[in-house]
């Protein structure tokens, strides 16, 4: 099934750099992948793990540096090309077609054919069964994938990869949706594949998995390679320190504001996972935010941080439970309109392109969208009033653009974010929720946004910021709480801010 001497480097990334608009995602990264080993790759969100894996598996084809496979230089044209060279990736979001059978999924796009060119169902079933059995999974390959549990679907993904010769199998947080027993089964499987000489690249956030599974641990940080070590030579503490350690940059400095009375109080907020009874996206969360306070929420991907903000904003009104008070008065928020109008809440969403902006509308129309009432003249929209208002915010937040009638899709990320912020400032909120407010924008715009947040807090607004960037969350927050697998797992006041302790509190399995 696999080739390569154990312990030899089967694949190597040399000085790989990848530039995205405004961000250097990878900076001359080296990465060695050893045959017959579980090569763990760790790093904070945004450290560059996914980008690197996307390059290894042929998703991104434009980058600097070179890839060597078995000592030969390779450049993949696409994922199919990478797969036929023996590199397969199993994404966190499984890529199966739900209404096709296990066998059909495994051979999708490469169905065996009979002599007259029809699908050879029998051969496909037999071959699929052989592979599936080898993985210790006794299933009827004619079943639809949609009838399988997530853990079983994961095995089908692996089986699908194994229908071709695999030399390197990349797995991106494969256990994030698995139960404990499914996880142990998967680990057994990974071990046996490695024992047969296959190289496994294993991306994870879970520290306990490193101890259980990894042979080598490579740490990435801010797009740079930090260290590679044999797993039995490093402690988890050392790894955590390597993940966060960074130079202190010259950075925005927060001012002190006297904390006011409680603005928002959440009690026992829970949100069940859709379709999975007994599992929760948010589990019994209680906290409060004061006037003039910036509360930072730190959590890894999947910790429920976005869901928490969405719930406060009324997006899960039909399924969530718990109590919410604004200025110590119990409120019921049935949707975004309620959250805005009745509670004075604004939400700056994480993904500005898909959730924050109408891309084909101009700046002025985007800014006025949440408060069209303010641009009415005799009950009708006044484009002139709309424009005056937009121009005021363009100047106040220095949105770089030639006209308020410019389409927002042509603005840079930082300026787009300022448009979203303007839209919400115009609603005159009392409480502002910001989800990753500076993702993908340059350092100057970041500092401008930090200063804006600081100003708003000094004017008495209560602010909640979700961020997975330590320098950011530690600079702007008065207090930080950590979320881990849907629960509040720690709370830190400003004098307790320390990256390692906060990260520890946010890591599962600790």
């Amino acid at each position: 099934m696999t080739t390569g001497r154990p312990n030899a480097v089967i694949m190597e990334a040399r000085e790989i750099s990848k530039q995205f608009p405004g961000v250097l995602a990878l900076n001359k990264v080296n990465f060695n992948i050893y045959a017959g080993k579980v090569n763990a790759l760790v790093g904070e969100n945004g450290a560059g793990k996914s980008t690197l894996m996307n390059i290894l598996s042929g998703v991104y084809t434009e980058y600097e540096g070179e890839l060597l496979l078995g000592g030969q230089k390779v450049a993949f044209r696409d994922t199919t090309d990478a797969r036929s060279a023996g590199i397969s990736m199993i994404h966190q979001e499984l890529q199966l077609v739900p209404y096709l059978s296990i066998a059909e999924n495994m051979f999708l796009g490469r169905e065996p054919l009979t002599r007259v060119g029809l699908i050879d169902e029998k051969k496909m079933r037999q071959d699929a069964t052989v592979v599936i059995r080898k993985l210790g999974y006794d299933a009827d390959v004619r079943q639809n994938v949609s009838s399988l549990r997530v853990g079983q679907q994961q095995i089908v993904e692996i089986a699908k990869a194994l229908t071709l010769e695999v030399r390197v199998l990349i797995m991106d947080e494969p256990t994030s949706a698995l139960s404990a027993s499914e996880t142990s089964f998967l680990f057994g499987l990974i071990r046996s594949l490695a024992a047969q000489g296959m190289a496994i690249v294993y991306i994870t956030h879970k520290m306990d998995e490193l101890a259980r599974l990894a042979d080598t641990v490579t740490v990435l940080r801010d797009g740079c390679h930090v260290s590679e070590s044999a797993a039995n030579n490093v402690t988890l503490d050392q790894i955590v320190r390597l993940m966060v350690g960074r130079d202190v940059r010259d950075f925005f400095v927060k001012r002190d504001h006297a904390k006011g009375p409680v603005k928002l109080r959440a009690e026992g907020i829970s949100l069940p996972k859709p379709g999975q009874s007994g599992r929760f996206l948010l589990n019994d969360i209680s906290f409060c935010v004061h006037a003039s306070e910036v509360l930072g929420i730190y959590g890894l991907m999947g910790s429920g941080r976005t869901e928490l903000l969405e719930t406060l904003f009324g997006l899960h009104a039909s399924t969530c439970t718990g109590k919410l008070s604004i200025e110590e008065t119990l409120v019921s928020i049935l949707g975004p309109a309620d959250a805005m109008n009745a509670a004075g809440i604004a939400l700056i969403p994480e993904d500005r392109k898909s959730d924050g902006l109408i891309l084909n509308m101009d700046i002025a129309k985007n800014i006025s969208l949440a408060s069209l009432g303010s641009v009415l003249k005799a009950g009708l929209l006044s484009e002139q009033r709309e424009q005056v208002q937009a121009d005021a915010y363009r100047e106040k937040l220095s949105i770089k653009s030639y006209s308020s009638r410019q389409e927002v899709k042509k603005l840079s990320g930082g300026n787009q974010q300022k448009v979203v912020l303007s839209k919400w400032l115009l609603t005159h909120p009392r409480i502002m929720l910001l989800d990753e407010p500076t993702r993908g924008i340059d350092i100057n715009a970041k500092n401008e946004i930090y200063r804006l947040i600081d100003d708003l807090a000094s004017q008495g607004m209560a602010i909640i910021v979700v961020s997975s960037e330590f320098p950011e969350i530690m600079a702007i927050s008065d207090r930080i709480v950590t979320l881990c697998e849907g629960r509040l797992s720690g709370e830190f006041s400003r004098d307790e801010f320390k990256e390692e302790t906060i990260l520890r509190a946010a890591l599962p399995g600790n």
Partner: protein
Amino acid sequence: MERPKVDIAILQPLVALTLMMLAMTILSENFATQDNLFNVARQISVNLCISIGMTMVILTGGIDLSVGSILAFTGAIAAGLLKNGIEWEGANLYIGFTILGATVAALASGALMGWFNGWMITRFKVPPFVATLGMLTIARGATMLYTKGFPITQLGDNFNYLGTGWFLGMPMPVWISLAVIAISAFFMRKTRTGRHIYAIGGNERAALLSGVDVKRVKVFVYTIAGVLSGVAGLLVTARLDSAQPNAGLGYELDSIAAVVIGGTSLSGGNGSIMGTVIGAVIIGVLNNGLVLMNVSPFWQQVIKGSVILLAVIIDRSQRKD
């Protein structure tokens, strides 16, 4: 300052229309006569009313296939109520209808059917294509039930004035469609709901997160589409002095074509009422011109279909993203 985008977007269909009319004038001596132009205008007015409702629906990212059937149903209701009223023998009850009463009832029935489309789409998350496909069949069946499959005729000159009459030197249907155009163009530009329609089509989730009541707006556009199909139903019925159970067959396709030729994106968020008006005129002029030039009806269809494809290809190639 940048010129408003709408003007640029409809420039292209406008140029196409002008060229086409020039060609028709040269190729057929009967085209550019006053009689013929009024005739064309009257024919177009029916498709115009439907297409404007369709534009609003498509701008939200939806589609309405039921407009032709709703047209037939509303026409039958107007004609039936006007002629026979409501008779209920068991209770010895008879309600007669004036022209105004029958008209209002017909429009209300169109509104109800449109509302039902919107309700299906927002409450039960039925895709618009399917929901309105269902209504296409239901409304046609309801028309057959109500008329028992026979036309309802002889509706009186006063009612027929709506379709055949003249007012200040222009046919009535033209006045009515001009009013519909003016009101809806104003509505789309100047009211909050109009803006919300664009926002939903541009990015439904962002609109929702900005406090737009997405469901209410969607129900509204389907209801308006139903009402405007009702207006078209009245025009057709009054013009023919007859409510035909088969009226409006296939009209949904002509109106979608008008919207698309007018530069409105089928994925929503981008387009204008004025674009659709030009699109409807292009189709009307094309129909008329081909008849005048004695082109065989079979070829007419091939040509019409090709024009639609050409319009979309040109539109696509100019939009870079």
